[in-house]
């Protein structure tokens, strides 16, 4: 009999593919757990036994997990959601008598461009430039601590760039290419630690069934060494876009502006404690001054339009500067992880989805 598995965050990109794959192959009896009714839209293609529960509502999650053998936790969201969910979902799984939870962390706990030699044993820190990374580190720590005092077995997976049908890595790059806003840093030579979504789901299955996986953390990725140029070129070719239209950049420098610094100051504990004591008129005056100091100057009415280049993000820059292919030796050894879908096949399927979604692919 197929195991009954609750999938938390089932309406997202990985979750919807996992539900689709397991439901169609019968590998598991899937119970999607989503935040609200609207999140059922994509899942409702199938006749499924779904539940509604807020990611941080332990009681609702407990009810949603009742009768399930395992939970796959694919929650995405802002750092607060990730952290609140880690504790709530583990305690709910415990209360519901779930045997095992697979938690989807991220290779970004090691940073977007990890140091050579990085593996699962590398020390993690909590002062990342991106709050998402720190939230995943803290969620891993919270879950590991809960496992020490709990009975629900825990497996943590750290995938890199998960791509496939409905992935933003596919649609965003296609959108950028179509708008002539795609860019590559250092010629796209950086390593994209890609993993096709079905390969990740294979790792999830193995994490659910491997006796030795409890309390373990695994980096997972595709077998091939893939560069960012490989990714962009595959999608550009499918769209019939000339690779020479991609902007090539040297690594830009990013600095935290005044607005960012002041925003950081505003949310700091001392300032939050003092804010209620500050008169409203003074607050308004300070807000106005900050707005004036950080506003862009009005353009001259004589100025001709200029071609707008790509909007370069710090996160993408860091990812494209990655010089390391993260190892999957531990997953291969303990889980028996062997990614079945090659990069070429994964891209073929992803591009098939672009056609499905109405992107203008030449026949």
């Amino acid at each position, binding site marked *: 009999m197929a195991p009954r598995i609750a999938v938390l965050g089932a309406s997202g990109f990985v979750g919807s593919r996992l539900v689709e794959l397991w439901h169609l192959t*019968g590998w598991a009896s899937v119970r999607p757990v989503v935040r609200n009714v609207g*999140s*059922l*839209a994509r899942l*409702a293609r*199938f006749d499924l036994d779904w539940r509604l529960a807020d990611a941080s509502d332990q009681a609702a999650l407990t009810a949603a997990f009742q009768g399930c053998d395992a939970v796959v936790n694919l929650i995405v969201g802002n750092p607060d959601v990730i952290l609140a969910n880690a504790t709530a979902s583990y305690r709910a799984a415990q209360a519901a008598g779930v045997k095992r939870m697979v938690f989807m962390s991220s290779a970004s706990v090691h940073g977007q461009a990890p140091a050579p030699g990085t593996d699962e044993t590398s020390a993690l820190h909590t002062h990342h430039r991106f709050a998402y990374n720190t939230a995943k580190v803290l969620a891993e720590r919270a879950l590991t601590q809960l496992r020490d005092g709990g009975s629900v077995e825990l497996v943590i997976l750290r995938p890199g760039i998960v791509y496939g049908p409905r992935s933003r890595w596919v649609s965003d790059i296609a959108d950028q290419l179509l708008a002539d806003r795609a860019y590559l840093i250092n010629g796209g030579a950086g390593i994209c630690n890609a993993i096709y979504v079905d390969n990740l789901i294979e790792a999830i299955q193995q994490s659910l069934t491997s006796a030795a996986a409890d309390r373990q953390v695994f980096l997972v990725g595709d077998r091939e060494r893939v560069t960012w140029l490989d990714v962009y070129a595959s999608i550009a070719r499918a769209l019939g876009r000339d690779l020479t239209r991609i902007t090539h950049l040297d690594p830009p420098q990013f600095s935290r502006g005044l607005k960012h610094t002041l925003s950081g100051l505003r949310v700091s504990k001392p300032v939050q404690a003092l804010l209620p004591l500050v008169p409203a008129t003074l607050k308004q005056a300070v807000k106005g001054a900050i707005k004036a100091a950080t506003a862009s100057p009005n353009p001259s009415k004589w100025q001709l339009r200029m071609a707008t280049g790509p909007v370069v993000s710090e996160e993408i820059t860091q990812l494209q500067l990655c010089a390391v292919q993260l190892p999957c030796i531990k997953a291969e050894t303990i889980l028996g992880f062997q990614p079945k879908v090659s990069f070429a096949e994964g891209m073929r399927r992803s591009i098939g989805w672009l056609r499905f979604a109405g992107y203008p692919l030449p026949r």
Partner: protein
Amino acid sequence: MTEQQPNSQSTPLRIALIGCGAITEQYYAPALKEAGKHTSLEVTALFDPAQQRLNAVEPSFPGATPLIEFEALIAARPNLAIVASPPKFHAAQTIALLGAGVHVLCEKPLACTLVEANQMVAAAQTADRLLAVGLFRRFFPALQTIKALVAGGALGAPTSFHFAEGGAFNWPAASASFFQKQHSQGGVLLDLGVHLLDLSCWWFGSPASITYADDAMGNLEANSHIQLTYTSGLTGEVRLSRDTPCSNRYVIEFEQGKVVWQVGDANHLDVRFKGITFPLSGVLREQSSGQDQAADTYNQSFVRQILNVVAAARGLETLRVPAAEAISSLRLIECCYANRQLIPMPWLSPAELERAQALATNSALTPSTSL
């Protein structure tokens, strides 16, 4: 049984709201308040079987009687009822109201099946009551302009059209009925497609042939692809989604140009003339009260719909979108479902595809409807 309708602007038309879900809370409640500033109307009764939903809408109409029994609403004898309940209740509720002598504005889709829709239209004729359908996009100035362009030939004959609408689902549905086949007999095609196909019928007439594919695999489709051909040689493509990003644009190619409408932009159109470099993109305007001003927006068009139905109930105007107008698009929808194929999904493995095909076959209605 009929009842004298208030035909004076000073006598309030008594209106009942049937169903207190998101459409009532977010559209009808504010629109009726605005309409009440322009004509005399009064919401006298609210009906919903869920007390929680009644509680949500009651504050908007403090003078209305909240009812959880539909029969009590019939007994209250409003002049006009707005049926905004889940689609599977439209036919029974509307026919009961018409039979009690009540005019009805029924939210789209008019019905879940063509048979039901025809029964509703027949019931309105028998009762000599008005039955309007909430295809309020027909009140959009931009879409009326497209109608005039197609009919008038200012850009030549239309040669092809491409409509894409949808995206990640963000309607604040108050219940899961949207996604349960036992409550909603269709997915994105019945929900969104009813608008697109109504407009295509309004503009171009009925197609000569239609091919349809969706991704329902045991329940309700999230993506629909439709191809249409017309005896004039016009061809059309419609893509609907509750899943993937969409351009949300209607593009109509004419012999002498092209018109682009962005979904929801009720008073704005882009027009490109053949051989001319610069397309026009602008707000449609109208003369109103001696002033040249922007034509109605999305929300204003919704209010216009209500004002038209109220005026028609008083015998002062002709109903602009009578329910009979919805029959053509419902026939197309039924034809689509009856002849549906599974959309190619090249990321599925052969084993998945085989199972998907089996589930899709079970999702299909019995093929019975043709154009």
